[in-house]
């Protein structure tokens, strides 16, 4: 245990680690939950000019309470702008104004391609998942995509997706299309951080949480996970970070369960 280490929950760990990755970013496209917590913390620490843009069209929200959905009424009242959907998706997102988009998925592969449509065959699925929503657009147009996965196991980190909903640039380039963004560049999990430098290269394990071994991470991953030569150890959340997260960002413990 390093000095200053404080016990924290898995949600707090993921939110803090993700927040650090937002250093100096200007705009983030974030859903409710861990992404909002991470972005709100980053705003208080490493990215003071960070603006959260919600899929619902809200920019510069000043919510009186933690929002329960991306369209919560408390995000609207007192916001700086509420944009129609064609403006949000067409001009802001596809137009290239988003630095980092947060996405989740049921399955992710080594290139950061994501499946949020089905488990099994699309035509007769074992599980019908919610589907693309705006994830495909975030993947195509945000400069980078961060994925936060609570669970790091072989069901989610797969060698082959059942269905590719939101493709990374690797797959788009194979079809002759060069997307604006670099695809998934960071995956933050309970075991550590996977990273990709940009278009086309595989996600590699670049850091593990204290106490986690490389073998644990490789075992929990459905493909032959590459490991960075300069593999690091994630610095645990500091007391200062946790205090801000708990006292300023989510004092009501809505998401920090």
């Amino acid at each position, binding site marked *: 245990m390093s000095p200053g280490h404080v016990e924290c929950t898995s949600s707090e760990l993921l939110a803090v680690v993700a927040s650090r990755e937002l250093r100096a970013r200007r705009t983030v496209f974030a859903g409710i939950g861990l992404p909002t917590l991470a972005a709100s913390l980053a705003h208080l620490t490493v990215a003071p000019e960070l603006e959260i843009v919600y899929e619902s069209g809200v920019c510069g929200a000043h919510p009186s309470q933690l929002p329960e959905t991306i369209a919560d009424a408390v995000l609207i009242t007192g916001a700086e702008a509420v944009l129609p959907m064609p403006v949000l998706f067409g001009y802001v997102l596809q137009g290239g104004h988003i630095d980092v988009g947060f996405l989740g998925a049921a399955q992710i592969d080594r290139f950061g391609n994501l499946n949020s449509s089905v488990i099994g065959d699309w035509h007769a699925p074992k599980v019908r998942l919610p589907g*693309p929503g705006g994830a495909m657009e975030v993947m195509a147009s945000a400069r980078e995509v961060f994925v936060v996965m609570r669970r790091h196991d072989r069901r989610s980190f797969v060698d082959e997706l059942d269905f590719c*909903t939101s493709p990374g640039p690797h797959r788009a380039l194979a079809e002759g299309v060069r997307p604006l963004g670099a695809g998934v560049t960071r995956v933050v999990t309970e075991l550590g951080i996977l990273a990709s430098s940009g278009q086309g290269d595989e996600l590699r394990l670049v850091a593990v949480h204290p106490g986690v071994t490389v073998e644990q991470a490789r075992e929990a991953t459905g493909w032959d996970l590459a490991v960075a030569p300069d593999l690091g150890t994630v610095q645990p959340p500091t007391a200062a970070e946790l205090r801000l997260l708990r006292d300023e960002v989510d004092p009501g413990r809505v998401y920090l369960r």
Partner: protein
Amino acid sequence: MPRSAPAQPDKTMTMREAIAAHVHDGGTVSLEGFTHLIPTAAGHEIIRQGRRGLTIVRMTADIVVDQLLAAGCVTKLVSSFVGNSSAGSLGELRRRIESAEGEPLEFEEYSHYGMICRYLAGAQRLPFYPLRSYAGSDLPSVNPAIRTVTSPYADERVHVVPPVNPDVTIVHAQRADRAGNTQIWGLTGIQAEAVFAARRAVVVVEEIVADEVVRSDPNRTVIPAHAVDAVVECPRGAHPSFAQGYYDRDNAFYRSWSAISRDPDRLQAWLADWVHGTADHAEYVAKLGPEFWARLEVGEALSLPVNYGRRL
């Protein structure tokens, strides 16, 4: 020219009249509203009137779609998100898609922006609309309507989606005048495009207001009267979703829907009780009761007025 202004045609009618007049068996019905202002009461009236064979077009297929499916109204769904918001699953929808039992449901899947672009093409009478999504996705392999076009400016392909022109679009809004000039604030979503793309449009509102209210702020009019065929006053008609400035979202109901919809019998009992068991939305509202509505009440946060000016 004080008398040169048009006579406002009165397009107001009851929900029963509007659904009877504009929603027909086998038709394509767009119901829009992104989390905010979902036209639930209109969906319930479609169920009450027993429409069959509908194609429902809706970006976020959520509770009202699950209810229409369970009531047997729908044979095809066009959507970009099929889930109960972040609160869980849609039981009926999953049964219709995941199991071979029951009536099959034709499902046409797009991304959010793909749906938006279909409405944009429909509203603009374009043969297609280009977008930067879909390259590398498996979606075009299961949806042949998603195609590509080569740019005439560079050797570059871009995906396109076809227009959607619903037989009728139904949206919910905060207020309109009797002619259909419709004002929405808060999330305005894709409502205007869905209305312009449709052959007919029904606007359901929290309140029909005097012409002068609308005309005090013409920039707030998201849908002009000439695009609207029917105006229905139906307070609280967006429940369990919300109407900014009128009532809040019923998050408890969203959370409960996963359990209700998981059990087909319980779901049918819910429909019998709350939809078939109420003559109209006013009864549904009354059945929920004043204490229930008090919990969703919202306070006041008024916009500051702007000056449109007057020639002196």
